[in-house]
């Protein structure tokens, strides 16, 4: 296998852009990632061993760029903008780590299959996720990557880092609470 960079844009750019978009839910970020991916690939062409296809190789670089972005983002201060670590746990949990009454998860009068089909719930969720800071929204989206890839990406990103998980946790707590507060059925 050899590389033909002059055909990269024509052959892969739209497809890879959509892939990045599905992982990040963010157009500007996806454009940046695609640029970085192709330029990075260009700079490291001599590392291409030819044991995988050109496409697979380019995707592996893109996945690395995505993972790298999230790893950096999860340690950035931006994540603590809305509520600092202590504030967020105080808002949702008391000093024993038990739910605060006003933000605790109440039962929603709906079952699993209804939840997925319920349009109102879908709309509320969209509104709530729009209110989240960019990085939190992207972190949430990251969690939605296809099952078989998750472990891989997690390894690349060293997702075991507590920081990452508390960021995800915080974003989900805020999101869930927002849905419940805005939903009549809940």
């Amino acid at each position, binding site marked *: 296998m050899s590389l033909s*960079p*002059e055909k*990269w*844009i024509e052959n892969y*750019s*739209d497809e890879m*852009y*959509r892939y990045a*978009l*599905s992982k990040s*839910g963010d*157009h500007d970020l996806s*454009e940046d990632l*695609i*640029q970085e991916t*192709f*330029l990075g690939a*260009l700079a490291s062409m001599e590392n291409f061993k030819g044991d995988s296809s050109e496409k697979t190789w380019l995707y592996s670089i893109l996945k690395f760029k995505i993972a790298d972005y999230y790893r950096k983002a999860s340690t950035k201060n931006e994540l603590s903008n809305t509520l600092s670590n202590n504030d967020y*746990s105080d808002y*949702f*949990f008391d000093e*024993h*780590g*038990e*739910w605060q009454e006003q933000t*605790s*998860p*109440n*039962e*929603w009068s709906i079952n*699993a299959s209804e*939840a*997925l089909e319920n349009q109102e*719930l*879908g709309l509320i*969720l*969209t509104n709530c*996720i729009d209110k989240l800071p960019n990085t939190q929204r992207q972190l*949430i*989206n990251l*969690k*939605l990557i296809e099952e078989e890839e*998750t*472990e891989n990406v*997690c390894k690349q990103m060293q*997702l075991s880092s507590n920081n990452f*998980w*508390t960021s*995800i*946790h915080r974003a*989900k*707590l805020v*999101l*869930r609470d927002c*849905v*419940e507060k805005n939903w009549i059925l809940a």
Partner: protein
Amino acid sequence: MMKTITHFFVLSCYKASLLIEKGNVLPLSFTQRIQLKLHTKICDKCNNYQKQSKWIDLILKKQLDLDQKKLKYTLSDEIKCKINSEIEKKLKK
């Protein structure tokens, strides 16, 4: 009081909900799974959280997928040109 004792043996709700998020993405250890099972058996709030957290993920995933299908997004021509000129520059060298 009862809840405090429970947390001593099992998990606090804070830790349980954090584990729920982790468990949605990565396999948990055997001990973690048992701890979480025990906790959600006795704690309605965390049981609700576990269900709802999963639903939220599923709905968002569905929305993302629909989005992708509805709009055949393409990379802007501007960016394509920019990358292509970089590629040309490099290949000429």
